[in-house]
C-alpha cells in the first residue's frame, strides 16, 4: 500500500473508532484529539489489527500515542508481510 494511502487509512480508522466526523491530522497526538482516551486506544488497536490482518505486540500497543505511531507500526508490519521481490 502506498504510504499516503496507509496514512489516510489509519486516519480514517481512528476517526471511525472515535465516531468523529473528520479524520485527525496525520501529526495528531492522542491527547489532542477529543475522545481519544485509553479505551479508545484499545478499540483503535483492534480495528487496525482487523483491517491490516496482523496482531500488535505488547510493546507496539503501549507505544501508541499518536496517528504517526500507528502509521509507523502499520508500515513496518505490512512491509514484513509483503513477499520479497527477487
Amino acid at each position, binding site marked *: 500500500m502506498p504510504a499516503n494511502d496507509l496514512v489516510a487509512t489509519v486516519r480514517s480508522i481512528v476517526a471511525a473508532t472515535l465516531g468523529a466526523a473528520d479524520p485527525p491530522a496525520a501529526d495528531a497526538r492522542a491527547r489532542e484529539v477529543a475522545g481519544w*482516551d*485509553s479505551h479508545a486506544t484499545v478499540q483503535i488497536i483492534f480495528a487496525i489489527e482487523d483491517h491490516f490482518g496482523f496482531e500488535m505486540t505488547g510493546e507496539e500497543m503501549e507505544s*501508541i500515542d499518536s496517528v504517526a505511531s500507528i502509521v509507523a507500526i502499520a508500515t513496518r508490519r505490512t512491509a514484513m508481510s509483503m513477499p520479497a521481490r527477487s
Partner: protein
Amino acid sequence: MSIAPEELAAEIRAQGLIVPTAVSGVVAQGRGFAEVADALVAAIRRLTAGVGEYLRFGAVMPRDQAVAMRYFANFPQLLGSIHCFCGSDAEHRALLRAHDAGEPWADALPPVELVLTPAACYPCYAILAARGAVPAAGYRLQVDATCFRHEPSDDPARLQSFRMQEVVAIGQPDAVVSFREHWLAASADFLARLGLEGDVAPADDPFFGRAAAVMAKAQRERELKFEWRTPVSDAARPTACLSANYHLDSFAKAFGLRFDDGSHAHSACVGFGVERIALALFRTHGMVAEAWPVEVVDLLRLEGTPRADIR
C-alpha cells in the same frame, strides 16, 4: 504477637477465624474475625461520617449499569453474572430431566437484569444522575457494599466475596482529586493508628487480555490509582487495603452526570477493603483481639466484646 505473612493462612484457619469452603476464595468468618470486621466497618463509618450522604448497597446491581461503566469490557474475568430460571412448567420438567440424565442444564438459566456488585461505588452514579444536573458543589457520599470478583485463590487476602466501604466525590476535577488526596491521607493515618505499617504506591487495575498493558500504562501515566499496601499473607507482595481512584469523567459520561452548563462531572473514590484490613490487624497484633494494644481496641471499640464469644 505479630505473625509472619507466610504463616497467616494456616494460623487463622487453625484458630477458626476463617473457615474455608469447597470453593477457593469463598470462606466463612468465625466469630472472632466477624467481630473485628464488624467493628472495623463501624470505625470506618465513624471516620467518614461527615463526608455526606450514606448509601449501603447489597451484593447485586443492575446489569446495564455495569455494562455502561465498561466493567464487562475491562474486567470480564472478574464479573459475576446472575442467572435464573424464568421458564414454564414444561421447561422446568425439561430442566430436571436434563439434570437427572447428567446432561448440561445451565442454559435453562439465562442471565437476568443483575450482576454482582464489583465495587461499592458502582451503583451510586446512576442514582445521582437520576436526580438531574449535578449541583455546583458536587456530591459527596459514603457507600458500603458486599462486592464480588471472580478471583479463585487460597490466599486469605484475596476473597471472591468481600466488604468494601468507600467515600466518593463527584464534582469538578480539582475538587475530586483533592478529595481523593485528602481521604487517602486520612485513611492511611487511620490505619497507622490501628498499628498497621504500609506504603502508598501508584497502582493499576487487572484489566483483561491484550488491552491490559495499554489501560494499565494510561492509569499509571495519569496517576489515576494509588493503593496503600501492607504485607498480609505474602511478605514479597504487599496487599492493597486501601484504593484511591480518579475516574476522570468516565463514570459521569456513562450516566450523563452533568453540571448545569452541560459539562460532565468528574469522580473519585477511596475504598477500604474490610477483610484485608482485618487480616492485617490479626497478622500484626495476634490472633486474640482482646490482647491487641489498648489504643487499637479503643479505636475499634472492641472492649465490650465478651471474651468467651471470641474464639
